[in-house]
């Protein structure tokens, strides 16, 4: 075994880039779940974001325009979910799955003639001499702009949920929608907005894969990242900063496989790939079984339908 072949700095840097798609999707889903809605359609949101971002980027010649398109497309698809679950009181599990199926199918149709094209490249901010610093340069100053945006987004979500009035209302709606309703909070409106935010983030996460990470369009390019994002929200027990940590771990698992192979450690890749899911189940058991402390973070009304009485 020769661990020297793994450069820890490069590993961390690539781990962060690998974490981005799930991070965006998970931070969106976290807000959705905090409002008491379980949207299982994250994979669909991501792939629609990926395909629309890719198409618009190629047609307009600008990756940034593509990203905006992916945000709108994700939110638009999520709106279908929002209308069905909030106004038509449809089952959230079934609607979420329908969203994923529809997204996968539609994206394959839309992207059919875009396979194998190279998208316009995404701008990297220039930090000048900072990027040449010995350790910090590689670790902090050589990412694409979205990595820095994700940091802002996570802090914003953390502040919003924990310290803003609107965030408090959102959590109240997710905790007990009947009580929140009787206090005068708009349950349905809050949830629709949360679902739209979740869709926008999911779309952005998908676009990150197709435009920056891969960058190419192939059918099913998100490859299950949406499901990992769902797992991640539970794993992090609905806390924004733990989502970052989890996303790096989950993103890191794939990289570890490659690196392990490179230095000749024999671990069956399949067992490494199932680790995130097993860890999530363990986390779920720990959260649900351990009485009050950690269970408090789980929104109490998660997945339950709300209908205003009178």
């Amino acid at each position: 075994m020769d661990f020297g072949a793994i450069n820890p700095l490069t590993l961390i840097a690539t781990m962060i880039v690998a974490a981005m798609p799930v991070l965006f999707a998970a931070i969106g889903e976290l807000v959705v779940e905090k409002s008491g809605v379980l949207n299982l359609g994250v994979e669909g949101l991501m792939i629609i974001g990926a395909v629309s971002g890719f198409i618009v980027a190629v047609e307009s010649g600008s990756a940034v325009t593509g990203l905006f398109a992916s945000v709108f497309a994700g939110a638009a698809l999520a709106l279908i979910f929002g209308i069905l679950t909030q106004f038509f009181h449809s089952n959230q599990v079934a609607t979420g799955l329908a969203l994923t199926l529809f997204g996968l199918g539609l994206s394959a149709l839309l992207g059919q003639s875009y396979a194998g094209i190279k998208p316009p490249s995404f701008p990297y901010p220039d930090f000048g001499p900072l990027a040449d610093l010995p350790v910090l340069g590689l670790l902090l100053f050589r990412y694409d702009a979205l990595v820095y945006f994700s940091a802002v987004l996570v802090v914003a979500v953390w502040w919003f949920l924990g310290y803003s009035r609107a965030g408090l209302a959102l959590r109240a709606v997710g905790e007990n929608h009947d009580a929140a309703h009787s206090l005068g909070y708009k349950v349905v409106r809050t949830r629709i907005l949360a679902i739209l935010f979740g869709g926008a983030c999911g779309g952005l996460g998908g676009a990150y894969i197709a435009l920056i990470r891969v960058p190419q369009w192939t059918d099913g390019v998100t490859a299950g990242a949406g499901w990992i994002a769902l797992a991640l929200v539970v794993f992090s027990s609905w806390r924004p900063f733990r989502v970052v940590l989890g996303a790096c771990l989950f993103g890191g698992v794939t990289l570890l496989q490659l690196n392990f192979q490179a230095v000749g450690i024999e671990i069956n890749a399949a067992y490494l790939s199932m680790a995130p899911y097993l860890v999530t189940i363990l986390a779920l058991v720990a959260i649900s079984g351990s009485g009050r402390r950690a269970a408090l973070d789980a929104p109490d009304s998660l997945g339950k339908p709300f209908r205003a009485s009178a």
Partner: protein
Amino acid sequence: MLRLEPRLEASRTWAALTPVMAVAATMVAGAVMFALLGKDPLVAIRTIFWAPLFDPALAAYARPQILVKAAPLILIAIGLSLGFRANIWNIGAEGQYVMGAVAGGGAALAFYPLDAWWLFPFMLFCGLLGGLLWGLIPAFLKVTFRANEILVSLMLVYVAEQYLASVALGLLRNPDGAGFPGSRNLQTYESAHNAELIAGTGIHLGVVTAALAVVMVYALLRMHRTGFEIKLSGQSPRAARFAGVNQAVLTYFCLGTGGAFAGLAGIFELSGPSGQLSIDFNVGYGFTAIIVAFLGRLHPFGIVFAGLLMALTYIGGEMAQFMLNLPSAAIQAFQGMLLFFLLSMEFLTRYRIRIRRLERN
């Protein structure tokens, strides 16, 4: 102004009408979608919904294929419907299906090349057991730790898929396969082959089992106490508690049955139409079965129709793929839309829309 009024009882008329309306709406929306993508909408709809059944050149191949595809969908959906009725959400049937196939296939391959009458039933039993045990994991975690079964069963799908990948590349890889991934083909393993019962019809033992399962579940729901408890827990959990329904037992029962049926579907598929345990052995039947269960309104006979319809879209989708050059995933857009329309129309069974004039005072 329009006003919604909850119905005291779900409307039976609408319950029967909505799936039909949803299918019609899906065809219209699908036609619009194809037109926007520059394909001839009428030809596309005709290829997907009509050609597999009635096209003289294709029907001979397609009709048996519909049964072959519908059988696992119906078998899985019928098991899931029990849980869905009781508000127990097993969405990990895909994983239970995979584990059934791995367990059953593994058992059969362990005795290769044995020629014995008991091998086939033993293999089916192991397949059932594999799915059952995989389904009992979320049940156990829900009963013991109150862990959400939706998330646990979903996570276990991906664990099962990875496990499948590892055995297809390792433990169960065909030793005579020149190093290619995938197991021996059970179709060439006489005593484990789930052959067609009547040649050319597509009817294999899995189709018969699916039909039996439908009748069994129908009888269970109509005549047995457990069936009553399932329905009661779904409609009114509080009333069920007062009536002394043991929620833990019900959870084990529903998730276990769902798992066992999915496992059986897996081993029937492996030993019959598919033959080989490979990385991409599972094709999403476990997830599509959830749509089938909803489309059939969780009713055993409804599920039969829904399963046949969904199988039709699969075959039609395949035909559209090579006749119209549509991507293979396109059919999922159809299935998703169908579920969207169904879920939104389901509303009509539970609410009545009243038109009321605005009153001024």
